[in-house]
């Protein structure tokens, strides 16, 4: 039975993650959804544009999922990231976990998103009315 769901997609379906994580041995499901925020440092963002090195991103996401499953004894894990142009309020990333008890899926979920941000090769460009900026590129 499949217990990790790793994807790079054009559009995130926020209902799908719950279906993916339903599990008879789990007493809890925890999900984090990252969305496009309208303001960055008081500047109005028009959209975000995501680009991925797909083969490597999938590879890294799979490693993160397996690490989390082992560390917190999770039953199922989802890591799904969107690419392309995303407008204000749209979902850009969803991670989730199901486990026997809630502590494990809360902690596992936090690890999934924090570690994704550290090492998965995906890049975000913030598009403003007068410029666009690759996030974190410069000190």
């Amino acid at each position: 039975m499949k217990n990790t769901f790793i994807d790079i997609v054009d559009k995130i379906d926020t209902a799908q993650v719950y279906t993916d994580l339903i599990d008879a041995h789990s007493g809890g499901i925890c999900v984090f959804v990252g969305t496009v925020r309208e303001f960055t440092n008081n500047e109005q963002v028009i959209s975000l544009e995501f680009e991925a090195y797909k083969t490597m991103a999938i590879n890294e996401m799979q490693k993160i999922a397996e690490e989390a499953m082992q560390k917190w004894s999770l039953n199922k894990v989802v890591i799904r990231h969107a690419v392309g142009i995303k407008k204000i309020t749209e979902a850009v990333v969803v991670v989730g976990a199901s486990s026997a008890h809630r502590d494990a899926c809360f902690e596992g979920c936090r690890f999934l998103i924090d570690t994704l941000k550290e090492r998965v090769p995906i890049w975000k460009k913030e598009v403003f009315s007068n410029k666009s900026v690759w996030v974190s590129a410069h000190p």
Partner: protein
Amino acid sequence: MKVLLFGIAKDIIGTSIFEMPSQPKYPTTVKELKVILVQMFPDFAKLSSFAVAVNSEYAHDDEALQLNDEIAIIPPVSGG
């Protein structure tokens, strides 16, 4: 020797696949590749950091490069 480029690295060089010059010689390690790129494109030195991936795995500076490896420049990641 081809190098895949993403994010700001693609903007710096102006293409998504860069062909490394064969003269005076191809880089034989990740470190040599980085030194050549910074010499050719000084804007790489202004980045917070940049990593190199070889065959879809992060590579250390002393890792050897083969001509048929899939090599990619990984500028600071910002997913999520």
